[in-house]
């Protein structure tokens, strides 16, 4: 039991298995044993700061999300059917300033939007104002938050020796240890353990989705996953009459003794979590029925529902006076469902959990980003997914600005995660295959974004800095590969490690100490990885930017 690795902590394994893995996992012994440390330092969970994460599963095409408009190589040459068209006003993409706000303007010349305009009628790349990068038009609802200075967009995010397997790469993002599948607990789980509250508070880390993700899994404390807040109760037999009897019998049996087995610690923790958290969600279930709406005329129209749960509440679909106009949807109709478990319903519940309980981290996910075929350019599958991202940030910002209770907008950070990006060059199916670096979005009242005074909210997609974006095709001007051809001529090379982004948020926002951070993200304990300061990674020799001073 002394060998500090994930397998030997577990008591069910046979001696031979343990012995063998003890040898096998010798290289992991520098991974600290989080759970046995003293929980004295840091202010995670004590300072009111909260974190909301959204997992974009399937590998988001970062190149068509945050578009390198200033790179001449981006265009029909590499993406004959997928290149997002550019607008033509002179200097539109190169003039510094605020992000062009297509929720306010109908065209690039500043014509105000009219209520009759279709929501996504502006179908060109949207300049962010950093002189180089542009948003996909489906992300237009990011602009208000960006221009408020509360959003950062980070391009070329990855990790050393990037895996192009969804499942490995998702594991690495979630367990915080690239190229190691044997760490079976998650980066946010460890952050919650470091808070010292994970075994005392019923809610610390919470997801609202079909299953508890690895990022919140661990075997010493239970994080909470709820798939449908409205159904989070027992039935009893027979029905209500026997509910107390059933529930009490269940509670009474939780501490019964059984011989150790592989699954039993997990079951014990999660059953306890179930029975401890059942009462906490009654209020949230009731609030799920509240229709939160924008406090301003959305999109030049009237105030929209922030978390649509039906076609009728989706953007301007139902016009004042009862008319209908499907071109006014803010999200695709797959973003919610009748069962109450769609993305926007889950997002709403996650927001409510952060706002109404002591939970510190909450998150949800949606998939569909594995766009190998018929990806869509300004409409179609990928643009629809991006609409959800853009609207999620808009809706969350408005919700927390208007309804803050235990979580204020200023105390909140929202991050997106996605396991890797997609090839710069499209394939024969009008789709893109697996590649390397992609984009992260970091938003919230505590985020230091664009300030109109020279600071922009875009990182990794500009031609300056220590790891600049290099425009142009390969081998142009003295053998320099353009960034779009950085690896194998079709992959974007990373300039920022996802752990630097999450690390900074965990320390400077949530309140971890640097010592805690080194336990939450083992890479920080290795100065050679340059996660803090930036520089050339000792793992693979690739230069990275380090932390970005995001929060």
């Amino acid at each position, binding site marked *: 039991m002394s060998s500090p690795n994930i*397998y030997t902590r577990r008591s*069910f*394994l046979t001696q031979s*298995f343990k*012995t*063998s893995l003890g*040898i*096998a*996992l010798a*290289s*992991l012994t520098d991974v600290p044993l989080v759970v046995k440390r003293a929980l004295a330092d840091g202010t995670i969970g004590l300072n009111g700061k909260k974190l909301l994460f959204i997992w974009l599963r399937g590998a988001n095409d970062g190149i068509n999300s945050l578009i390198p408009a200033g790179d001449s190589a981006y265009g029909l040459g590499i993406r004959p059917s997928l290149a997002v068209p550019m607008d033509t006003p002179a200097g539109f993409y190169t003039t510094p300033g605020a992000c062009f706000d297509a929720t306010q303007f109908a065209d690039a010349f500043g014509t105000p939007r009219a209520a009759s305009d279709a929501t996504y009628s502006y179908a060109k790349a949207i300049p962010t104002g950093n002189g180089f990068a542009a948003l996909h038009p489906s992300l237009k609802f990011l602009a208000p938050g960006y221009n408020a200075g509360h959003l950062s967009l980070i391009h070329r995010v990855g990790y050393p020796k990037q*895996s192009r397997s*969804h*499942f*490995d790469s998702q594991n690495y993002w979630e367990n915080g240890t690239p*190229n190691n599948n*044997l760490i079976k607990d998650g980066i946010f789980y460890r952050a919650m353990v470091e808070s010292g509250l994970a075994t005392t508070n019923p809610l610390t880390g919470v997801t609202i989705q*079909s299953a*508890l993700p690895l990022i919140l899994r661990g075997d010493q404390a239970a994080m*909470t*996953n*709820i*798939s*449908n807040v409205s*159904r989070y*109760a027992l*039935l*009893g*037999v*027979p029905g*209500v009459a*026997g509910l*107390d*009897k*059933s529930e009490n019998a*269940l509670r009474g*049996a*939780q501490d*019964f003794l*059984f*011989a150790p*087995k592989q*699954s039993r610690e*997990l*079951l014990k923790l*999660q059953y306890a979590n*179930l029975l401890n*958290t059942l009462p906490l969600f009654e209020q949230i279930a009731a609030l799920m029925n509240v229709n939160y709406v924008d406090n301003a005329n959305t999109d030049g129209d009237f105030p929209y529902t922030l978390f649509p749960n039906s076609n009728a509440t989706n953007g301007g679909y139902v016009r004042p006076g009862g008319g209908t106009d499907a071109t006014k949807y803010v999200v695709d109709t797959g973003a919610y*469902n*009748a*069962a109450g478990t769609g993305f926007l319903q889950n997002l709403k519940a996650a927001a409510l959990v952060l706002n109404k309980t002591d939970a510190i981290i909450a998150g949800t996910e949606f998939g*569909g980003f*594995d766009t*190998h*075929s018929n990806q869509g350019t300004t409409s179609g599958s990928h643009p629809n997914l991006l609409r959800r991202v853009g609207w999620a940030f808009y809706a969350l910002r408005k919700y927390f600005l208007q309804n803050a209770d235990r979580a204020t907008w200023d105390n909140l950070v929202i991050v997106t995660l996605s396991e890797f990006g997609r090839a710069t060059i*499209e*394939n*024969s199916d009008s789709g893109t*295959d697996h590649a390397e670096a992609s984009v992260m979005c970091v938003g919230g009242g505590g985020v230091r974004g664009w300030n109109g005074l020279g600071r922009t909210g875009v990182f990794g997609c500009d031609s300056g800095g220590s790891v600049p974006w290099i425009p142009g095709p390969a081998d142009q001007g003295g053998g320099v590969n353009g960034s779009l051809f950085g690896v*194998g001529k079709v992959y974007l090379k990373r300039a920022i490690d996802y752990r630097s982004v999450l690390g900074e948020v965990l320390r400077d926002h949530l309140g971890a100490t640097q010592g805690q951070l080194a336990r939450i993200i083992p890479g920080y304990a290795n100065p050679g990885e340059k996660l803090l300061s930036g520089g050339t990674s000792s793992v693979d020799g690739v230069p990275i930017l380090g932390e970005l001073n995001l929060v």
Partner: protein
Amino acid sequence: MKARHCLLPAVLFAFTALAQPDVPPPLSLTVSNQTKVLRWSPYPHAEAYQLLSATNLAQGFAPDGSGTLAPFAWATTNTRPEQFYRLGVTPLGSNALLAAQALNRLAYGPTPDELERIAVIGPDAWIEEQLAPENLPDTLDAYTTVVTNAVPGDPATNWLRVVATGLATGTSRSNVYVYLSGVGEVYLDDLKLVSGTSPDAGTNLLVNGGFEAPLTPAWSLSPNVAGSTLSTQVSFSGQASLRLSSTAPGSGEGSALKQVVAPVLTNNEVVTLSFYYLPTTNSRLLTVRLGGSGTISSGSDLPQPPAWVYAQATGIATAANTLYLYPSGAGVAYLDEIKLVAGSQAGVGVNLLANGGFETGRSPWQVSADFANSAVVSNVAFAGNACFNIVASGGGSGNGDSIYQTGIPGVVSGNVYTVSYWYVPFTKSRSLTVRLSGSGTAGLLTSTPDAGMPGLRRRLDTRNGQLHHLRAWHLQNAVGARRQLVEVLLQFLENHFVTEHDKSRNYLSAYYTDGTMQDVLSADWEFRENAAWRAALLRTDCTFYDLLKTSAQSPAMIVYLDTVNSRGDARNIANENYARELFELFCLGVDNGYDQFDIVAQSRAWTGWTVDLLPPGQAGDPFAVRSTVYGSNPGNGYNSVSNLVGTWNFRFRSDRHGTNRAPLLSVWSTNSTSTNLIPLGPKLVPARFGPPWAGTPYQLAIPGRTGTNGIQDGYDVLRHLANLPMTMEYLSVKLCRLFVHEDFPNPTTRPELPEYAFYDYTNPNRSAEAELVHQCMLAWWNSNPRGQIRPVLRTIFNSELFRTRAGVSQKVKTPLEFSASVLRALRSTNSDGTFTASTDGYSITGTSRDGSKAPLTRMGNMVLFDRDAPDGYPEVGASWISAGTLAERCRFVQAALMSATDTNKNDGMNTSANGNLTDPVALLKKKLPSASWSNASSVATYFLGILFPAEGMGNLAQYQQAAVAFLNTADNGSTSSPFSLLGTTTAAYDTRVRGMVAMLMTQQRFQEQ
């Protein structure tokens, strides 16, 4: 008394066969006043505990009767100053342990009946049964059909119309040819050729197209059709039709029935050809076309011969003596030889019905308004000379809305009867219900074969099933099939070679606007994969290559992983999706012997692998072109795919196949790019594999091929990958995770990763897990033909890891395993053929395509046949267990255990009623002597034994106490209400037992397998 006087760690082992815990359970002692309490930790799978003591070690230990045994504790007030104590454990017998393991892993959980049977025949014999499923009857999945040509069907309804529109071009554009593809006969009538696109508008340009007059002179006959004659026996309209009789295949001029249209058609004139035809038992593909290059080809699938289906049901009669027949909706069916007999043997004994063979007209059968057009017909019969033709204008429901016979003599309320009949099912998705009158309570004699298992299977077989039908069928098999291991393996394969119904549907939506059609065709792809795997698994020499090939050729896979539009011709860049997952997920495992450049190289082999609507009779020909055979029900226009007849299947398009090849599984130059692969030599099997594999090269060079030969590139890849050491290893690992426990990490060929050393087969100290994988690989490798599945499975089932506590109870059930096991745990066969627990399937998987509101969706989004990510559903418990999913699991159990009339039972499912039916009281009354029915302890003990057979009664003592307390408490949870005082036929008794069983099934231990 001081602790040192106790022999704390001493444990008496009274068993031999099992691998035992390394450390005996520790004992602790507390002393307060005069009470001594000894406590211990549970010992795995303990059947009983006993306290022994000795005052003098030299005299040995003897059972100590001075104290009382409580769960994991023993208390005594014995005041003797010195005493040595020892804990005795009677472990669960090794056969009982293996039986529980086998029923939990090779099956979807134990059933009461199987627990009894396996105790008799022994677990090894039971496992051997499952390993030879071809010898196991599986009546559940089989339905009886008799294909007979003695039943030609109703001519008026079997005439099929073909309409085709096209251009008349070329010099022979006015020649009309009619011929068959081989030796055979077909009837043809009302052949019309009109100008324009409407078959029914305009003058028929053909002379004698109705074949009412002799064939000459307008028609001329080539020698191969010279035997054709007019038939006045059969016609679509008028008095006659053409009986086209062919002695050799036709093709056009010189080998067909021919007429030259006069005056000749204008060049490029749009014309429409239409006709009716009636196939015979000796039909061949019929073509009617114009000459010239702008031909119109038409014809049709051979229709399915009429199939008589046998159905039977046994049940209990209630008061009234009326038998009702009714379909669920409008349609046509045939019924014959309906018999109602006393007892449970179909057709044995006197038929209580009058005129069940419909040989003497309709009487005494009566029909209500919806069925007024039904009649006895004499041209169709299963037996005798007539049958009953059910013609329904709407659905029926029973009394007042059905076909019925009343006043049946000899029917006694409460007695068991069996009904049986033969019928030709409705062509549409209609079910036929046959039942005795009554209020619809359990046990009533009701036969609805089309709605039940045989109906689902038949619906899927005939390409009429939607996804929710397929899922319901899958679940009914999981719960009820005897070939349980086959069902477990089919789910494993479906999940390993994962595909997504929704993506298929989306693909087909380009061709069909009818959402049901999209659903049906996509479900058919899933079903055909499943059927092919099932057939393979029933062969003794089934290999992994067989299974892999089925997956690769499946339209569902070709669409799912995007080879369907992948092109390698010209400057196109092949789609990498399938190539990547073939390495990563289907064969070698991630990072286990390939790299990105191998993916690029492999992706080119799959270019041109697409799917298409292939013509009738050519569904298995990957070189066939898209069907041009028009169906009889025009859809979106004459040139629409939705108007074509054929089968969607794998098609290889050599025009899209790339020739840019590099040998895959090479060592690649670092100067390689995705567009310029530079191989330096073969990859070698890493050292950790040991003999006979280590160091062997495993590069695959694909020869230059042209044209249709390019299809071989893909098969080369499959054949090569199927038996690579890394593939054997990865598949063995996955099977071990399925059957043993989840902690078999993914193997890798990257030496810097710890998993490399874990699976080092040259290490003499390798773990039992690594050794089991190694043994599986050897079994795979040494089988002949190589790659057989059964030897690998046998290796696992014979392993210590599988058979002992190292494997038993280590896993958490997936939502599918959990829900099926809930039903199975209470499922015993009644003497009347019904069960004490059953499911309609839909109540687990839902009645909608997206599975919304279905328990499997709620318990973790396990939507069968519709996984969006290609890694399949996880085998790891942590992926399934969270507070939210546990709440849903508890709700599922509680709803399933509610009585059928409980208002909460449906729990918001999107089924009309919860079809997860359980009757634990009926079960206990079957299995326990009546003297025990009111004994709370006996009742609790029985259910503990069937719900937790692997645990050992010694470790279930706390559950036992809780169950007894539950039985002795009223529904409010606080008032004492002795179980022994409840009448065993009362609702209170029923509810008490249901609640107690639900309570046990919502416990942690029932989540395990």
